[in-house]
Structures are given as C-alpha cells and as structure tokens.
C-alpha cells in the first residue's frame, strides 16, 4: 500500500469543507430573501455582471471529473490526456460566435424559449424539455456516482451518506436561493478551484526550476518518449471526429450552461461572460496538463494507479506530496465544492425545464401566475434532487464515465441543432424542430447503447452492433438533416412570417427582456 493519508479524515479538510458549507449557506440565506419572482428564481433577477457570470460559467463547466479526471489521464497517459484538455475547451468559441447573444436576446429563462419563439409553443416546449432533461439526467447520474466514489476515496465517508450530503446541500442552495445562490456557489467554487490548481502548478514548477523543458525531460526519462506522443487512446479517425464534434457542439447545447446567459442584463454582458469563461477554462486546462505531468514524475504511476486505477487521485496525491496534509485537505474540500456546484447548476436547469417548459408551457398553455410557477419550480427542484440521490444509489459501482459523453452527445444532437436552426433559418418549422430534437436524442442514446462502450463493456456482448464509441457525428448530422427535410416538406407560413420579429430582436435586441 502506497504511503498516503488519502481516504482518512483530516482536520484540515473538515475545516475547509465546513467553512465552505457555512459560507454558501449564509449566501443562500441572503439570496433567499431576494428570490421571490420567476425572474429571480431562474435568472438571479438578471443582476449578475458579465465577469461574474464568466466565473460562474467556468464553475458550472469545470467538474470534478474534468479536474481530477484530466489530471489523472495526463499523469497516466501523457500526451493523450492533453487531447482531452483541448476538446473540453473548443466548444466555447462556438457558444460565443453562434449562441450567446441570440440566446440572451430571444429568451427568458430556458433555451426552449428561443426554439419556441416563433413556433407552436406546446409541441416545441415538450420536445425541448425532453432534450434538456435527458441531457441533465445523464450528466447528473455521472456526477452523483462520481461524487459518491470520490468522497468515499477522499474522506472515507460511506457512499450513500456522501450522496445524501451532496443531495441535501444542493437542494438547499437551489430551493431557497434559486439562481442567485447557485451563481455565487459557482463563483466561489471557481475561485477555489483556479486558486488551488494554480498553487499546485506553482509548487510543481518550483521543483523543476520553473522550466517546462526540465519537467518534460524528466517525464520522458521515466516513461520513454511514448509519453510525449499521441498514443492509442484515440485510434479510429471516425471516432476521433465524432468525439470532437460532440464535445464542441455539446457545450453549446448544455441546458445548465445556456441558462446562465439569462442571469446577465443584456447581450453585451452575455458576450463578455463567454470571453471571461473561455479564458479561465483554458487557463485551467493548461494547468491540469502541468499537474498531470508533475504527478507522473513526483508521485509516479504505480502509486497513482494503486490508489485509483483511473488516475483520479493523481492531483490529490501530488498535493499531499508537495504541500502536506494541509494542502491535501484544502484540495479535498475544493473537489467537494466542485461537485456540489455542478450538481446544483444541473438541478436548477432540470427544474426549469420541468416547471417553465413542461408545467407552464405545455400543461398550463403558457398561462400561470408568478407565485404558482416559482412554487412548481421549487417542487421540481426537490423531486429532481431526490431523484439524483436515488439514481446515484442505483448506479453505484457501475461504470458511468460514458454518461458524460452521452450527455454531450445528446446536447449536441437534440438541443444544439434545433437551437441553431430556430435562430438562423427562416423556414424552420414546429414539425421540423420536434422531429430534429427527437431524432437527435433517440439516435444518440440508442447508438451509445449499441456501441462497444455499453454493448460490449457493460452488457457483455461479444460484438458491438454500432462500431464506434462516439455517436455524435451520426446523431448530430441526422438531427440537422431531419430538421431541414421535415421543415421543407411541411412549411409553416406563420413561423416564417414571425422571423422578421425574431431577427430584429436577435440582432439588435429590440424587445429583449
């Protein structure tokens, strides 16, 4: 057994964790007094600045899986891990160029607002809510299972207790503090994570005389030059492109990310927040590379893989080696905060799809009192929170890493094409939108089930029916193709007529909320 105190309860990690919980609960209490209307519950009263929202977006996006996971991947597989770092970032420019401003100008609380802007409300909202919820649920399962496992690894807490703790806190943030509390939880978490990663990278570089040349040559000495080159992680070109597409366009279709653009006052701030978020996320992924290489040299493969075969503990082990148990404790608290912030954001996005799109938009045909909608949103939050805990228990011990990929594939196939076509294409219709969302969603899910990842590795069949690991390429293009085809076959005069209004509001913000 390697020399580490990971998995034991430290006074420092408990202290940092309790401090984080206390601060966030005080914020939630403060936010609760400012969360009465729908605008406050879903969109923090549009009071968040571009810079704050940029940090919060970064907080929403940088999950524990990407911090611990990518650092681990780099530490064990070298250059191959770097490929993932790049992939997780490149969706952000797309969000900036195609989505952020139109989304902010056209919508109110959810991305379904935009798709339904000039189409028939009920069918479009029902389909868009299904796309949102599917994305959110897969993402949530992956996060919850990851949370239980991580907390067990780091604190030695039983899996179910860890889930209950995470679930209760996240419900408290969202239920009482709505988007305002959730946003500040994200901001605090982002600052903690960026700060922790920066200190860690600094401590590593300190060991190598602040020379990357020295860092890399040590890594090469230990693990040969294979470590410095792309290896076998991505072997099939079709799979590589398919994964790339899903990561890139999935980012632009994640409901909890899209929802954040309604928290700022206008399109200019929305645009600024993407720039800030892209900068911080890019900086963070570059740091994880340094951390990964540092861990490979200072901690070493045998210890990293000995504690956790997936390498998830590379960064904490390194923190312990360089900064002692105090720094390990801090990083453990950061990981916990990270998990909490991401699940809170997801829960809020899921609750909005349930209340704003399904309950008010579909069931009540768009007519509902403010108070009633907020109440429904709160009930939805509690239901989703409990569902998340239960799903976490159901999927205990399962390999759920593929579910993050699946969430991105669904987001890229169900949400993104419909959103883009509703903004850009005059002749897009209600039938086209519903067909596009449904085909993209169903195809992404079915193809993953038939892929080697699930069909062979999890179900245990000999040969996969669908040969690729990533369905993105096929499901996304199908969604676009079906959307265009159905729209052209069954034109909708009214939707085309309303495009003029949409255009003015989209480009010039005329009439934007």
């Amino acid at each position, binding site marked *: 057994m390697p020399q580490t105190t990971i998995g034991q309860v430290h006074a420092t990690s408990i202290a940092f964790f309790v401090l984080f919980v206390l601060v966030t609960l005080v914020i939630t209490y403060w936010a609760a007094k400012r969360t009465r209307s729908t605008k406050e519950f879903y969109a923090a009263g549009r009071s968040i600045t571009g810079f704050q929202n940029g940090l919060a977006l970064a907080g929403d996006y940088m999950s524990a899986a990407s911090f611990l996971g990518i650092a681990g991947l780099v530490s064990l597989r070298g250059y191959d891990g770097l490929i993932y770092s*790049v992939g997780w*970032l490149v969706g952000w420019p*797309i969000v900036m160029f195609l989505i952020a401003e139109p989304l902010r100008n056209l919508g109110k609380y959810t991305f379904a607002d935009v798709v339904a802007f000039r189409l028939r409300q009920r069918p479009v909202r029902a389909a868009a809510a299904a796309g949102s919820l599917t994305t959110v649920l897969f993402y949530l399962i992956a996060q919850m299972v990851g949370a239980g496992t991580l907390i067990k690894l780091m604190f030695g807490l039983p899996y179910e207790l860890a889930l209950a703790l995470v679930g209760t806190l996240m419900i408290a943030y969202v239920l009482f503090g709505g988007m305002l509390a959730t946003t500040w939880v994200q901001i605090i978490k982002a600052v903690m994570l960026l700060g922790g990663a920066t200190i860690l990278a600094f401590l590593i570089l300190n060991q190598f005389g602040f020379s990357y040349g020295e860092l890399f040559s040590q890594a090469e000495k230990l693990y040969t030059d294979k470590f410095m080159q792309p290896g076998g992680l991505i072997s099939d070109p079709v799979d590589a492109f398919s994964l790339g597409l899903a990561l890139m366009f999935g980012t632009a279709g994640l409901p909890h990310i899209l929802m954040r653009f309604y928290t700022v006052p206008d399109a200019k701030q929305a645009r600024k927040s993407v720039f800030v978020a892209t900068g911080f996320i890019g900086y963070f992924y570059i740091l994880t590379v340094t951390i990964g290489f540092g861990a490979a040299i200072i901690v070493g493969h045998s210890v990293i893989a000995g504690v956790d075969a997936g390498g998830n503990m590379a960064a904490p082990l390194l923190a312990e080696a360089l900064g002692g148990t105090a720094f390990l404790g801090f990083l453990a608290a950061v990981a916990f905060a990270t998990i909490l912030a991401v699940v809170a954001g997801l829960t809020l996005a899921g609750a909005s799809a349930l209340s704003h799109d399904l309950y008010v938009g579909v069931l009540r045909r768009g007519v509902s009192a403010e108070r009633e909608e907020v109440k429904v949103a709160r009930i939805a939050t509690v239901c989703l929170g409990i569902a998340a805990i239960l799903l976490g228990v159901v999927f205990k011990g399962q390999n759920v890493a593929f579910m993050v990929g699946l969430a991105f594939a669904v987001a890229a196939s169900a949400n993104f094409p419909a959103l883009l076509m509703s903004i850009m294409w005059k002749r897009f219709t209600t039938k086209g939108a519903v067909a596009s969302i449904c085909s993209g969603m169903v195809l992404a899910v079915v193809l993953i089930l038939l892929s080697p990842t699930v069909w062979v590795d999890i179900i245990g069949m000999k040969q996969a029916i669908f040969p690729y690991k990533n369905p993105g390429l096929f499901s996304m293009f199908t969604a676009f193709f079906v959307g265009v085809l159905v729209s052209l076959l069954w034109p909708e005069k009214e939707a085309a007529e309303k495009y003029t209004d949409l255009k003015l509001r989209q480009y010039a913000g005329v009439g934007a909320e």
Partner: protein
Amino acid sequence: MNGQLKNKSLSDDPDFRELVVRKNTISWILTIVELVLYFGFIGLIAFNKPFLGMKISGSITIGIPIAVGTIVLSWILTGIYILWANNRYDEMVRKIRDKVGG
C-alpha cells in the same frame, strides 16, 4: 399589428440589413476558423501521429505547443469577436435602436 408593420419596414432598412450581413459574416468566419483549428488538430492525431511526436527542443514534442496553442488561439478568437462587437456591432445596434425609438 402596428408594431409588426414597423418591424417589417425596419427589417428592410439598409442599416439593419448591413448589420445582419456583417454579424453573420464575422460569426461564421470565426466559427470556421475554430473548426479548422480544432479539427486540424484532431486530423493530425488521426492521420499523422509521428508529426505530433517530433521533438522540437529537448524532450518537448511539437504536439505540446500545438495542443496548448489550440487552447490559447481559441481564447484569442473569442477576444477578436469581443473587440469587433464592442467597436462596430454595438454602434450599429445603437443606430437601429434609435430608429425604433428605444
């Protein structure tokens, strides 16, 4: 109905048409640059691994600056868009909104 009529004539306004064309052009050009950048990188991984493994200085392979460069360039692209939008786009939007009267 009045509002819709007003919008109709406004959408034919040459200033508004120019705004739409300009904004779409810059958005799509930058999107295509980003796609070429990233899928160029993926293409190298898929079809030319040895190139990425070439040493440039000491143990550093050319793939490392390419990967980090893709991240940095992506961010710079969002910065270019911000610069354009703050200097040009906002000005054009102001003109249109003045015509609408609000």
